[in-house]
């Protein structure tokens, strides 16, 4: 075989391969809703497998956790969102890198997020943050975050206040934590106390923490609007249906006749509005 023939054959084969690839893209196989897989779930095994490349492996698991959360959250309506791998991935990331602050803090926000925006597992959020405190006992931010989970998701204001108090007692913690603990204990469940909490979090230097706090503040504003609308209705007036703070019109709840946030709204769902599938 001459060199020219071999070259022509190679080019022709490559062209065929490209054509087949393009054909596959044009007529794709029907999509199958495959569950995500996690081959190694044991953090103890993984710490040995990765040798001294634990930090990079932790980063990889953190990126996977982000992707898993985003993929489930933005999945099409036919897919049942389970967020099944979220905690195992976060557990692996934080075991491989016990000082991975954002994995604890952001991860707890993901885990506590009500269904369908998240798995609705504040218990796991608390467990993750307590793991962080075991690694760094003086990290007041984790204690503040546990208080936040108790306050917002579990509505256990006594526990929330005790965690804010514990955070306030750590050397170097901000001074506003102590009054926050007192307000939480005295007025827990009141929107004024909630607003005070999230206004402080909205001043955080972390962008994602600010965004999360702004979302909660918008939800509180929506609740105020819903209450105002209900008051007008009880007075016998016929108020128009307003928009929520994200600009989406509220919808009427057929069960109660009250306003509620539309599923298409950016601030959906409000706490307790939906429950995860069992």
């Amino acid at each position, binding site marked *: 075989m001459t060199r020219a023939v071999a070259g022509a054959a190679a080019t022709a084969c490559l062209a065929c391969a490209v054509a087949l690839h393009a054909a596959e893209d044009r007529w794709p196989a029907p999509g199958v809703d495959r569950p995500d897989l996690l081959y190694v779930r044991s953090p103890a095994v993984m710490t040995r497998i990765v040798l001294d490349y634990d*930090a*990079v492996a932790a980063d990889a698991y953190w*990126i996977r956790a982000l992707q898993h959360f985003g993929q489930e959250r933005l999945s099409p309506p036919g897919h049942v969102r389970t967020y099944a791998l979220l905690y195992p991935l976060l557990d692996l990331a934080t075991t491989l890198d016990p*000082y991975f602050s*954002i994995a604890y803090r952001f991860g707890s926000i993901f885990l506590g997020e009500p269904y369908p925006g998240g798995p609705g597992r504040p218990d796991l959020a608390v467990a993750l943050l307590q793991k962080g405190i075991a690694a760094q006992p003086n990290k007041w931010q984790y204690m503040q975050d546990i208080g936040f989970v108790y306050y917002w998701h579990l509505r256990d204001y006594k526990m929330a206040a005790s965690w804010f108090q514990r955070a306030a007692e750590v050397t170097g913690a901000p001074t506003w934590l102590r009054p926050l603990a007192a307000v939480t204990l005295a007025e827990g469940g009141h929107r004024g106390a909630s607003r005070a909490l999230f206004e402080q979090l909205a001043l955080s*230097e972390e*962008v994602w923490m600010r965004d999360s706090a702004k979302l909660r503040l918008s939800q509180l504003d929506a609740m105020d609007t819903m209450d105002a609308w209900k008051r007008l209705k009880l007075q016998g007036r016929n108020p128009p249906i307003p928009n929520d703070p994200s600009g989406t019109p509220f919808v009427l709840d057929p069960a109660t006749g009250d306003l509620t946030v539309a599923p298409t709204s950016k601030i959906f769902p409000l706490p307790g509005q939906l429950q995860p599938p069992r």
Partner: protein
Amino acid sequence: MNAARCVAVAVFRESVRDRVFYNLVLFAVLLIAASILMGQLTAGQDIKIIKDLGLAATSLFGLFIAIFVGISLVSKEVDRRSVYPLLAKPIRRSEFIVGKYAGLLLTLFVNIAVMTIALYTVLFFLSRGVPKPIQGAWDAPALDPALLKAIALIYMGLAVVTAVAVLFSTYSSPLLSAVFTLGVYLVGQFNADLKHFDVIVDSPAAVAMARACYYVLPDFARFDVKLAVVHGIPVTGSYVLATAAYAATYIAALVFGAIVIFSKRDFK
């Protein structure tokens, strides 16, 4: 020692000729690509991840060079029979081994130095323009000089791996040398487990053997402070010095061992 220096320079030149430094291109591409992608993927953790990635890549590329160049340092000369005219010259066998080892250390040093500069450059460009309050939330500054401690310890660890590879290279084939060196490296990673073997095994003999291995085999976990440095946890100068002393004594033992074995080899 002039002869050893000549051998070392020859090893370095050979590394350049063998395109060992091509790995630097791969390293640069990896870091630059990662720095572009990370911002999209990691929710504001790009600086931490670039540091992790840079340090891990420095360690991994260095490990490949230490093992795969180290194992052939002596055996290649024997296989090619170039060792015969070399040893006929006024050069002692000890100088030959020391020169070979020093040459590979020089190669590793240049490699790691360039990688360090590349890592700091990428970190500089990533952190440029980031507001001060956000920088204040990072565990450690982007251009943290403490990274150099982690890199120095990586280099010391690689120097030990190189010494192990040279030792095996003096009496074994390249394939077996690679397997042995990799084996020692892997066992050295789990050194702490050997220390606590009594927790899982009842046999006193097995425990004593594990304890002996714990002391005799190199403890590569000592050289890993990457996680601490990236999170701004202080690594004391005394720790670095103690680890350097440990590395120096261990390397000396391995190089002396290699000299003894190589001196006894019969090349007739």
